[in-house]
């Protein structure tokens, strides 16, 4: 318990220390005051140290299952394997902010050394410390060390003497004999998060988020120092690093959604996905425009603006996904963090935006505005246009994601945009980006070669046309898709050609070309897997093969896997080769619903993707269902059944109104056709207030000892016209009058995604390209520093 109180105190110290560091760094930019840079540095180190200790305490509390802490109780449980248990550290808001702050702090340690060497420390670190202090303020408000009896005082805190034999009791106030009970088990981790993606995906994304603060800090430092050019070199490696981490995180998230969550594709334009895509797009745009500034000294303002916007996008996406503003418009559940956190997030965003944009406007007269003299056919213009296209995509995605906010303002009611909004707006821009990533590279490269533009264009164009024709053979498509395919193929061949010659010259310089090859391959993968995919919903009766999508598909049956989960084995056969796919379904106590996970077979040329929809239990052919209107009768089973009236004898009106346990009955008269004997029976629906209502079966034995079972299936009372009320009943007939049996049926959605491997190959190529670029830019930044010395 005390260790938790220490944790909360450490967070407060860390906040104050970061704020003090920001202040001291700022004061020491021009003159040495208050103990100088050394004290500022110590203050930052103190902030990092206390935060690391607090994080270690939180991890310790999770690992030792201290459920007297709300956070630990809310997200973990004793049955989680170690990696998942560790991952509950960032399963909730408090923890994920802690992780973000932690990465920010650790990057800060490097940044002190890094910026000190370049003479930027007091400038960069004053901004950076302020960012850290705001993240820490979030944690002061949303304390991960809150005790569970503070969160649920009415349920847990009690007064009086403690009854003996009660476990997990803590005495809060001896004098007032105040004590509380705390849980022995946690609520557990959302089953959707219980896989290895949860272990790796969020940390990578948060490293990216944290790294995006560095270019921002450098841009503000440039404005402070009124030195608008030299900041680019030290900032670039961080920009590329942040971009690479974010990109990797996004891709892993996409693969997670595809492979485990069963979204059917790798991208669903979901707010959570979009919110990490936007900063990535802006960072890629910034990478391109900073490149021009290095070469020609132009786009000074653009670069500062883009670096600021990257970080703004990170903050805005945090605001969108953490503040509860998206509320009811997404499949994700957005927890309302409370008003204080909401305003704090908003305030944080406004503050850092005003610092950045305000400062930029203030300094705009002071900044050199280099003459942009590049012609229409210059590489600079091509790159600029490409960067602007990326910014446009970012803007469109932001507008789409913010739709609930925009529509609330305009129409008073929040609504989200449909998925096709993103496709329609971004496809033309995608075509432009594909084209420019080819032609821009070509123009860039040509500057160092002496071949004519026409000659260097010829071969890639011809190959791109051939590729497009090959894709067209798969089926006709709309013109925009054809253009997208063509230019993606064009970009691929151009960059392949350039990449090859650059690699021959200096392998370390091939990063750019490689990244572009990756993007082009991904684009082609989008077309093949999303536009030429085939989807079928199949009802698979156990043991009966079905022909679909070029496969022979047969449901074999289900087997239990771990902890009451079931794998549904489906055999797929093509050209004599058999494979088994095993999608899983299970009921989750956590979400109170059915969880479904797809399974897939990854072939070289395509994926076969099988998502389970439902399992229809075997039907022994004995059950017949009838709909009966009030006052009418049905026959066909040997019984004539008449729905006489509702039976409210067991119903207590007051409890029914409160949604408590109640039962609603119907009175039937049953006439046996063989003996003409008539009986009255009642069937009930019992609603226990939680979950589905129950419909207990009633046995009915005829005069000739034939056994029937009757049960209500549903009741549809008509309030306005009671004579129109309907019921549905199920009658189980004796074995001898059973009809044909129906086997167990598994309903699945099967799809074939051609060449989806291109997407994965493309992403890996892209990340490798990024990595090579970082290595190169770090070396370059180091060389520049040596020159200064």
């Amino acid at each position, binding site marked *: 318990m005390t260790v938790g109180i220490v944790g909360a105190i450490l967070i407060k110290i860390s906040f104050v220390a970061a704020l003090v560091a920001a202040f001291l760094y700022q004061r020491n930019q021009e003159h040495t005051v208050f103990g100088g840079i050394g004290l500022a540095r110590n203050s930052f180190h103190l902030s990092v140290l206390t935060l690391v200790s607090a994080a270690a305490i939180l991890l310790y509390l999770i690992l030792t299952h201290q459920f007297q802490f709300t956070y630990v109780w809310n997200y973990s449980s004793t049955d989680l394997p170690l990696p998942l248990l560790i991952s509950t550290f960032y399963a909730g808001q408090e923890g994920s902010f802690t992780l973000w702050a932690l990465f920010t702090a650790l990057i800060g340690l490097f940044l002190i050394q890094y910026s000190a060497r370049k003479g930027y420390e007091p400038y960069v670190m004053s901004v950076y410390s302020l960012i850290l202090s705001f993240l820490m303020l979030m944690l002061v408000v949303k304390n991960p060390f809150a005790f569970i009896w503070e969160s649920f005082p009415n349920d847990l805190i009690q007064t009086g003497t403690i009854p003996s034999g009660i476990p997990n009791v803590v005495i809060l106030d001896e004098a007032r004999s105040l004590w509380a009970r705390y849980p022995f088990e946690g609520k557990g981790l959302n089953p959707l998060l219980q896989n290895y993606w949860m272990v790796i995906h969020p940390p990578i994304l948060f490293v990216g988020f944290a790294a995006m603060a560095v270019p921002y800090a450098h841009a503000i430092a440039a404005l402070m120092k009124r030195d608008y050019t030299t900041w680019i070199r030290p900032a670039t490696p961080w920009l590329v690093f942040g971009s690479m981490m974010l990109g990797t995180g996004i891709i892993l998230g996409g693969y997670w959604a595809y492979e485990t969550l069963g979204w059917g594709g790798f991208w669903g334009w979901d707010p959570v996905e979009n919110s990490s895509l936007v900063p990535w797009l802006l960072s890629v745009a910034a990478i391109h425009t900073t490149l021009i500034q290095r070469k020609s000294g132009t786009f000074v303002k653009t670069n500062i603006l883009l670096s600021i916007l990257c970080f703004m996008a990170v903050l805005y996406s945090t605001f969108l996904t953490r503040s509860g503003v998206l509320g009811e418009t997404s499949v994700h559940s957005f927890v309302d963090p409370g008003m204080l956190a909401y305003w704090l997030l908003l305030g944080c965003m406004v503050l850092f935006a005003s610092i950045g944009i305000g400062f930029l406007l203030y300094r705009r007269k002071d900044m050199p505005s280099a003459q942009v003299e590049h012609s*229409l056919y210059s590489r600079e213009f091509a790159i600029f246009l490409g960067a602007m296209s990326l910014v446009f995509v970012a803007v469109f995605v932001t507008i789409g994601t913010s739709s609930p906010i925009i529509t609330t303002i305009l129409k008073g009611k929040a609504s989200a945009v449909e998925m096709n909004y993103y496709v329609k*707006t971004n496809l033309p821009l995608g075509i432009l980006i594909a084209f420019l990533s080819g032609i821009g590279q070509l123009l860039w490269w040509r500057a160092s070669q002496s071949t004519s533009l026409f000659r260097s264009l010829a071969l890639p164009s011809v190959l791109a046309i051939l590729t497009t024709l090959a894709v067209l053979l798969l089926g006709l498509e709309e013109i925009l898709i054809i253009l997208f395919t063509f230019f993606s193929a064009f970009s691929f061949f151009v960059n392949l050609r350039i990449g090859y010659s650059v690699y021959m010259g200096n392998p370390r310089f091939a990063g750019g070309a490689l990244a572009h090859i990756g993007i082009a391959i991904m684009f082609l993968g989008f077309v093949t897997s999303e536009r030429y995919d085939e989807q079928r919903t199949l009802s698979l009766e156990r043991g009966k093969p079905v022909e679909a999508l070029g496969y022979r598909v047969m449901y074999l049956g289900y087997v239990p896997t771990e902890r009451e989960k079931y794998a549904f084995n489906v055999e797929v056969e093509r050209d004599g080769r058999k494979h088994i796919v095993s999608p899983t379904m299970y009921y989750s106590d956590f979400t109170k619903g059915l969880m479904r996970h797809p399974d897939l077979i990854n072939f070289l040329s395509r994926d076969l993707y099988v998502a389970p929809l439902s399992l229809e239990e075997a039907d022994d052919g004995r059950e017949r269902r009838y709909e009966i209107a009030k006052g009418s009768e049905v026959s066909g089973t040997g019984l004539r059944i008449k729905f006489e009236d509702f039976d409210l004898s067991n119903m207590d009106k007051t409890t029914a109104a409160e949604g408590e346990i109640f039962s609603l009955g119907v009175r039937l008269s049953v006439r046996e056709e063989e003996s003409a004997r008539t009986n009255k029976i009642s069937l009930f629906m019992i609603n226990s207030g939680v979950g589905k209502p129950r419909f207990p079966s009633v046995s009915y034995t005829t005069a000739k000892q034939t056994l029937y079972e009757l049960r209500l299936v*549903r009741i549809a009372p008509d309030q306005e016209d009671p004579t129109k009320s309907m019921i549905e009943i199920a009658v189980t007939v004796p074995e001898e009058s059973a009809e044909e049996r129906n086997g167990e049926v598994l309903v699945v959605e099967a799809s074939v995604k051609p060449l989806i491997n291109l997407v994965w190959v493309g992403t890996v190529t892209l990340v490798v390209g990024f990595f090579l670029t970082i290595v190169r830019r770090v070396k370059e930044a180091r060389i520049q520093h040596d020159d200064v010395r």
Partner: protein
Amino acid sequence: MKPKIIIGAAVVIVGLVLGTVNFLESNVEYMDFTSAERTGKKAQVKGEWLKEMETRFDSQNVQFIFHMKDENQRVMKVVLEGAKPNNFEIATSVVAKGKIEDGHFHATDVLTKCPSKYEGNSETVKKTL
């Protein structure tokens, strides 16, 4: 200089027009069953699932059928193309997206809303004591 500005301006204008049109088009409006019926357009209807009425999955046509009461208490049969949405039973409200056809609401998408879905509440904390 000139052609660049023209190209730039053209790109910006085309982009803005494209974005606005798409944004307005793809924002499906919230309405009740009655207005959805009147306009015949694609709509989002928020309401409550009626547990006691017919609720079943039609495995032949792969449709999930249930009845929903909108905010003006009008009840309508909803036919969803697909399987039962996750968390359907515990949802406090559902939002169906689609249009009215042949007297029923033909939904392409059904979102379920469970405000306390992943947050601990007093009920869950009592269970783990």
